């Protein structure tokens, strides 16, 4: 996991204080709070779990236990290019898993992870509603239809070059 910088950390602490101020100390707010935190930062930073825990008078492991149960929550930030591979039924049936494996290999990260240069993050999603184009990959807003493991490099190469130019 990449640790946030001092500035980021300050920003996160501020943001979380703001979110927590809208909720009283009741455990039933746990999931809505976590959702808000993720909405604000794109992920659940480590300090968020601790701050939320102490606000709700829970332990950080309890909060982490709940959060880690759901695929919806992530613990690493999103990359500049968030890569999502559809693992809905249709995409799964026509080899989505193989594409996902190829993505993990090419990016050298696991699902839920982010590359060291913070350019790419990788997630699996459920059906995104265009099963006719299965298997479907999404990077940012762009949809890549009828994916195959061999098309992974091709799709990533432009984005990777862009990254190197910056």
């Amino acid at each position, binding site marked *: 996991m990449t640790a946030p910088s001092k500035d980021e950390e300050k920003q996160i602490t501020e943001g979380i204080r703001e979110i927590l101020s809208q909720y009283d100390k009741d455990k039933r707010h746990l999931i809505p709070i976590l959702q808000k935190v993720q909405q604000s930062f794109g992920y659940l930073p480590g300090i968020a779990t601790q701050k939320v825990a102490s606000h709700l008078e829970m332990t950080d*492991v309890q909060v982490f*236990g709940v959060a880690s149960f759901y695929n919806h929550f992530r613990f690493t930030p999103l990359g500049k290019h968030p890569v999502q591979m559809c693992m809905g039924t249709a995409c799964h049936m026509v080899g989505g898993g193989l594409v996902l494996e190829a993505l993990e290999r090419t990016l050298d990260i696991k699902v839920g992870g982010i590359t060291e240069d913070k350019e790419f993050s990788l997630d699996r999603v459920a059906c995104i509603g265009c099963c006719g184009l299965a298997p479907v990959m999404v990077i940012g807003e762009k949809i890549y239809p009828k994916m195959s493991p061999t098309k992974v490099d091709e799709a990533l190469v432009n984005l990777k070059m862009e990254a190197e130019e910056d």
Partner: protein
Amino acid sequence: MTELIKLTINDTQVEAEKGTKILSAALDAGIYIPNLCYLPEADLPFGGCRLCYVEVEGRGPVTACTQPVTNGMVVHTQTPEVERLRRTAFKLLIAYHNLDCRNCPKNKKCELQKLAPKVKVKLKTPEDFRDLPTDLLPPDTTNPYVTYDPNTCVLCGKCVHVCAQKNGEPLIDFAFRGYETRLTMSSDITLIEEKCPSCGQCVAICPTAGLQTPTSSESNATLAEGG
């Protein structure tokens, strides 16, 4: 005075206080029912291991640790049906367990070793589960007082319960889901130092090698490395 309930377990007349679970009633009467996750003092039974299946006449198989006794209840602890259920449950418990008893710190003191002959299952990876992932997961050595081995933990929940009892809140708890379910240690060292009295109760209650006190040279090395 608490009300006494009369029931029959394997043709034996048994009396137990109202609210007692079938499992406790049977064990107190000297009738053995396999169990792994049961803690009599817990308000809510965990009911996770499914080893304690018994047959209640008119109701079929139930887990003995979750069902309170009722008057006139007739319980059988050894029907072919419940024995089959227990075998399956036990196989599931060891399906992706790192079964290396000879080199295991818990060898000869392990609850699974004691249970295996009782549920009539061999302590080796069951045929039907050979295709499950077998990669060993890394141990968790973040807590200076206890180390955790996800490969021998059977997720019985006992450690979480005793920790919460002792400290008013659990400093260890389950996280993730499915195959990935494992215990998490508090990641915040100040929290551990402030709250964990290093009482060792979680290690003592662990039926397997899941939780250990870091005494072996190996875990000490990992601890030193981690700072």
